[in-house]
């Protein structure tokens, strides 16, 4: 009897461990993008706004909510991921058509081949950007917080030469991906903050499930273009927009 008990208890701890050490390698994550509309709308005023536009902006601030939230999802398995917006009928008041308040990317990443395909809408134009996955220089910190029930560690990063990123990743999800094109950490990115752009993405739900290979498909449509070409095309188009152009170029390249 006693032996039986011991065996059972051994078995029990084994089960417990299996549960404790549960590692996620495929599933679905829902993210919420939060935009500080009051702050981002100001960028759209450009360098020397007219008195009228300032008044318009002031009125906007008084009448409209400061924060707007947009939903998106990430399907992933060990080697591939697909990030796409979830469209809702809810309308937001986007005063100056700020691209930061829209979701213009569908991001397909092949993590094993380190390649990505991004379907990008820039106003009327549609591009299919083929590039290597984005390189981000990460600094790992000791700080951590919990997101969607997962303990995440903070990393600070720099991408596209100058954009400062704060990201939170979980060691328990062994896929080096994240929302949009954010990637490269030792676990899944469940939170991203671009403090200077007043934007953030946070996971609201993590579902651990098997994702069939054919469920993660490359986006289609749009003019095929490389990342480098896209940048030169856009900067050529926006070069006369002044400070506003610099801002929108930065956002569209995210």
């Amino acid at each position: 009897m006693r032996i039986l008990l011991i065996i059972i208890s051994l078995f029990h701890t084994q089960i417990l461990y299996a549960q404790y050490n549960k590692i996620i390698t495929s599933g679905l994550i829902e993210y919420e993008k939060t935009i500080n509309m009051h702050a981002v709308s100001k960028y759209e005023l450009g360098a020397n706004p007219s008195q009228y536009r300032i008044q318009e902006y002031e009125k906007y601030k008084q009448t409209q909510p400061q924060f707007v939230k947009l939903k998106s999802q990430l399907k992933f398995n060990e080697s591939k991921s697909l990030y796409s917006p979830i469209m809702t009928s809810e309308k937001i008041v986007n005063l100056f058509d700020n691209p930061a308040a829209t979701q213009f990317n569908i991001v397909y990443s092949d993590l094993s081949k380190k390649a990505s395909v991004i379907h990008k809408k820039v106003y009327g134009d549609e591009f299919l950007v083929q590039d290597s996955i984005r390189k981000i220089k990460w600094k790992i910190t000791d700080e951590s917080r919990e997101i969607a029930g997962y303990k995440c560690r903070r990393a600070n990063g720099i991408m596209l030469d100058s954009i400062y990123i704060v990201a939170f990743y979980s060691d328990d999800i062994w896929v080096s991906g994240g929302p949009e094109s954010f990637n490269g950490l030792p676990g899944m990115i469940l939170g991203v903050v671009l403090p200077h752009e007043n934007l953030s993405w946070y996971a609201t739900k993590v579902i651990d499930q098997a994702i069939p290979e054919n469920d993660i498909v490359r986006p289609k449509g749009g003019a095929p273009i490389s990342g480098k070409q896209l940048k030169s095309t856009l900067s050529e188009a926006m070069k006369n927009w002044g400070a506003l152009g610099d801002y929108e170029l930065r956002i569209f390249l995210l």
Partner: protein
Amino acid sequence: MRQLLLSIFTCLFSTYVFGQQIFSIQGRVVDSISNVKPASTITILNAKDSILVKFVHTRLNEGAFNITGLYPGKFQLLITSRDYADYTDTFILDALNSKQNFGNINLKLKSSLLKEVVIKGNLSAIKIKGDTTEFNAAHYLMQANASIEDLVKKFPGMQIARDGSITFNGESIKRVLVDGEEFFGNDPTLVTRNLRADMVDKAQVYNRLTDQAKLTGVDDGKGEKVLNIKLKEDKKNGLFGKVEGGLATDQYYSGQAMFNKFTNLSKLSVYTITSNDGKTGFGYEDNNQLGISGDEGLLVSNLSDDYFSNYESYSGVGLPSVRNGGVHYDTKWNEEKQSINLNYKIGLLSITNNENSLLQQTLSPQETFIQNSDHYNYNHVFRQNADFVYRQKINSMSDLKLRFVGGLKNIDGIDRSVTTTTDFENNLLNRQYNSQIIKGSLNAFKAGLFYARKFKKEGRTISIDFLNFYEKSISTNNLQATVFIAQTAQDSITDQQKDNNLASNRSNLDINYSEPLSKNITAIINYKFEVNQSKADIATFNRSAVNEYDVLDARFSSNYKFDQSANQFGGLINYRLNKITVNVGTSLSLVNFDQLNLIYNTRSLYNFTNWAPEIKFNYRGSGKSFDLTYSGSNTLPTISQLQPLTDNRNLLNIIEGNPDLQSSYRNTLRAYYRFSKPISDMFLSISANYSNFINPIITNVYTDINEGRSISRYINLKNEKPEIYTLIVNYSSKIKKLGIRGEFGLSTYNYTHFNYINTQLNKSINNTFAAKIGLSKSKESKYTLSVSAEPNFSISKFSLNPQNNINAAGLNLNKYLEIILGKGFNFISDVNYSYKAETITLPAQYFTMWNAVLSKSFLKQQNLKLSISGNNLLDQKSYTRYTNAGVIGQTNALTIGRYIMCTLTWNFTKFAKTF
């Protein structure tokens, strides 16, 4: 055939690889308790800036990892796994160590580790890695503008005394470093009281090894405990400091200013202090900076002019006044391969003291007399110290370090006393008036060079340490004394001037070579050579008819030249297996000592042989350590024991030399056990020591019963062995339910020693037993209360004068209360009470010291503080008492009494914003 082909291939391939080395690490993650290999994330960061380099994952029960494609540099390994505590370690890859094998890495379940800590945020509060205990400052909520001292006080196991000295877990911390760099030498308060708590990222306590031990990896036991303050990244660039001024009743004052400018690669600090309140600017352990009285190495200790050592520091006796200033600068360049560290200090210290001492001297029950003396003295010292260290990493194999220390010291002093000796029936035996006026100056210079080199074979190293030390002192003493002996009813008058001229030049060469004999065994061979040339010229002049001191008094004049040299050969075998280290070593040194009397042209030659064996056993487990050491060593007689310079400064006590003295031998056995669970704030340490002395050098005092004058001499004791044994147990823990931290200690100190009193041998046995109970409780931003009680009992037995035997109890009580009253108000009250029971010969003694402070902080960042403090509120005076076989004594000195001080403090900061 296939095999052959394959091996040729591999050979070819490996030569190819050699030109283009592969840098990699490997290891295996395990949980040895449950025998599971947890699924883990292994991350490699750049040690310098935490930039992510590489990562891999290991699945459940896979464990092993192997990461290739790295490059030379210093890295941090971070292993994380859900439900387990994070594991970190640093490692270096270079041409020599292109592969690092971590072996089994044992992860610990958080549930077993973090049973009790309340974690704010998500950082682990304490990490233990080998000998290092690391505290995460983010865990401790601090008041605005709190100092590092306030922060360190809150770490478990850490204690800070009133003078700022720090002990961790019962071991005293000798130095405080900032980001691994020396900061103002060895006055820790210049770091702990002047840098701000909010700048600290982490604080680490570890044993800093000597340069040699770092090189060979064999701990030579000469390291010291240090506290290293790691600054936050964003606080490494900026300006900060403070200005403080206080005025008090009875003309006490205190003022200080400190300014710091830090950048990533350099630190500049300037400070100045002026005060007479006995609290600020009296940094302890200042004196060894120059090595003036420091390590004498293998040789017979140098003769030194003891006037200078009397002027070192303030010990709480007398009224002090201080003016100090200093500059610190350190910087690194060339990818941190080269660095300098510079400290300069300048200061004035003066102390005025009046004391009365009462001494009862017993030769036998029938022969007792009483000596009563009143003493006035004024000491003034002006000193400067400069210390410069240059370090260069020549390449990945060799290092160079240069060190220069220079110092100047000028002293001025007056010493006056009246001493009367009476017999038991109060009949006068003698009376002495003594007045001395002293002036002197001392220069010292030290230069050192340390070169270390590693070889391709791991563990093979060589190091060369060369040190030259020069010191010269000149002093003049104007001595006027009148001794009246009642029996002869005669006054003898001394009116002299003494010119003292001392100089010494010492060189040391120390060469160490280490060679690994096998994977676990390393041998170290050591050779030391020391040479010391010194001279001591003391000329005493009597006053002539023309009122000049120009008549040489040959009785009290001497001129000696000392030549010493020593050769030491040593060897050590170090054996290491997992957690166990065993060292077995010995050294033999031959000392030649040649003393030349230049006045009489006589010569004395002495030869000493020193033999110092040592056996050391260490066990280092996680949270547990045990050390057992046996060592033996010779103690050489000092020059003044062999042949003192004739001295008539105190005519009531004359010291005679004994040129036949031999060295004595000391055997020591030491055991030390530590057990700690820092997370639940529990520490236990037990240390036991035993020493005996063979052929010890003891005092032989002959006192003339009729005149009351003494003659002292040193002799070797042949048949008896003095002994010392001590046992100290300390336990501290948290009482969870009450939120109280408790400390309990038991200690006993026992020694037996011998001395001759008027040709009769006396044996003294002393036993002291003490216990300590301390409790403290604190509530964040509300209050801190700590109380402690230390009862003790001491027994002393004297074979010669049993009527002096002591059986006495004592008690010390301490209470510290800090209340945060809100709105920037803060109150501190600190009471110390001590009691010694009466003995047959002395009455009971009570003393209570009560200090209190009320402060209020202003401004948005609370960086302006006004405080009112009361010192020694009950205005009590302390006195010291002592008893031994021949003497019972008591001294009352002038101390700082009650005063009320009003202080204004302004803290300023400006840090650059960085990524």
